[in-house]
């Protein structure tokens, strides 16, 4: 869809975050209190980006920059557009009949919904992990090797290296190295989720999208995944949708608060959870609503 012209008269949420910038006449939000760090260039940028399910505008003109190699959490009540926004980044919403977008969503400066984008390549660079672990009904080895094989790697030695590296990165190697030929469905829930993370890492993405990755896991498995997120930070850009605000506070560098499809606040996680700028944010994170 064409980018919509900016409507300057449109009412915006009251008391919007202070750090606003403008490029090409479109204002966007950078996280408040982001440390000045030249490595933290924006990796994903949205400009007046809306997502529609037929006539329903599920995400409403969101403009923000997600910084590179940081962990950004997206929080908000059910139905606020968190997962919808997340899925837009690797165009998983394309699979939903009747979905459309307006505005712009940029990945490394390129329009994700541009005509020249190869969605397969996009989804290689932007991996995804879902709420319910979904290993393929194959061996552990073949689960991890599936993506690299699809992208042209056939040499067994190379595949073995990729599998080991990915499982190491996902902190699963020691637990499964002696049973790589066993079916992945025999793993525990927490192990399956780490397997899914390893599978995403195997194709060397730049961004990892995680849609409530621990909500189906027990506390111990949850802690392992959170530790893993901490380890992967600095190498990958991670965007995590979570209902668990303590989790957002624990693992993320920056937090985005969406409400009814609208961006209410976006800032340094420490700041947002100790002294949010917006009353609405404070009411949500303290449990006064939502």
């Amino acid at each position, binding site marked *: 869809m064409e980018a919509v012209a900016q409507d300057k008269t449109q009412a915006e949420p009251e008391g919007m975050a202070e750090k606003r910038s403008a490029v090409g006449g479109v204002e966007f939000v950078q996280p408040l209190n982001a440390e000045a760090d030249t490595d933290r260039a924006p990796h994903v940028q949205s400009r007046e980006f809306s997502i529609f399910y037929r006539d329903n505008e599920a995400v409403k003109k969101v403009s923000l920059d997600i910084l590179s190699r940081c962990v950004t959490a997206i929080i908000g009540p059910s139905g606020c557009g968190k997962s919808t926004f997340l899925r837009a980044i690797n165009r998983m919403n394309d699979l939903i009949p009747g979905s459309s977008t307006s505005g712009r969503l940029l990945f490394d400066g390129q329009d994700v919904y541009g005509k020249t984008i190869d969605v397969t390549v996009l989804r290689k660079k932007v991996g995804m992990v879902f709420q319910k672990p979904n290993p393929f009904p194959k061996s552990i080895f073949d689960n991890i090797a599936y993506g690299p094989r699809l992208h042209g790697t056939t040499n067994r030695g190379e595949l073995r290296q990729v599998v080991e590296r990915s499982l190491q990165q996902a902190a699963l190697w020691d637990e499964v190295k002696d049973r790589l030929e066993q079916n992945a469905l025999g793993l525990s829930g927490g192990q399956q989720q780490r397997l899914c993370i390893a599978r995403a890492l195997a194709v060397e993405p730049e961004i990892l999208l995680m849609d409530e990755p621990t909500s189906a896991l027990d506390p111990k498995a949850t802690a392992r995944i959170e530790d893993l997120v901490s380890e992967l930070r600095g190498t990958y850009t991670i965007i995590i949708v979570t209902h668990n605000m303590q989790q957002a506070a624990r693992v993320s560098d920056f937090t985005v608060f969406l409400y009814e499809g609208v961006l209410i606040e976006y800032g340094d996680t420490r700041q947002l*959870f100790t002294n949010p700028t917006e009353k609405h944010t404070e009411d949500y994170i303290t449990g006064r609503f939502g």
Partner: protein
Amino acid sequence: MVRHLQREIERLKKRVLALCADVEKNVAMATRAVGEQDKELAQKVIDSDLGVDGIEVEIEEECLKILALHQPVAIDLRVIIAILKINNDLERIGDLAVNIAERAIYLATQKPLADKFDFPTMTDKVTAMLRKGVDALVSMDATAAYKVCEADDEVDELNRHMYNLVDSLISEGRKEGHTLMHLLSVSRHLERIADHATNIAEDVIYMITGDIVRHHIEDYTGSVQ
């Protein structure tokens, strides 16, 4: 769950208010004991400090329980942190009231001086600062808290006046050197109580605004409406 947390926080605020009232009473009794050379009144202050210490521990344990069980964030977290710190300041004020009472016990054995040591005025200002700081906590009033910080200068001035008075009396060759030094200590203790009351007000400001102002309060006072 949220209502439960809010009820606990309200209960905690009431306990802090009660502790403040006890400590304020002890400060007033201690300086009255100095002025009236009343050993028994002074001893009452010393004996009651055990109770103050006990309440301080209870309030701290309550705060830790809330942090562990509720994991509060934002304003709720700042309230608990502020209460933890204010609790500590109130306990220190209680100790300073005991120090004043101990001076009173010594001074009761000495001949009273004719010179004017206006402890009642100083005490009134200090206890007013204390009361207004804790009231600001309960009513979430940052403006009132800033005014408490501004009042600290007046107490500092009174303490300086006491120091100058003692200095001049000693220079005149007055023989009651020990008495004068004990009186100066009382003034010093009251000035320290005012500092703690200022700390309380600064913690209230942090609780309400999220700004830590304690090392540059002069940037904020003077412009309060």
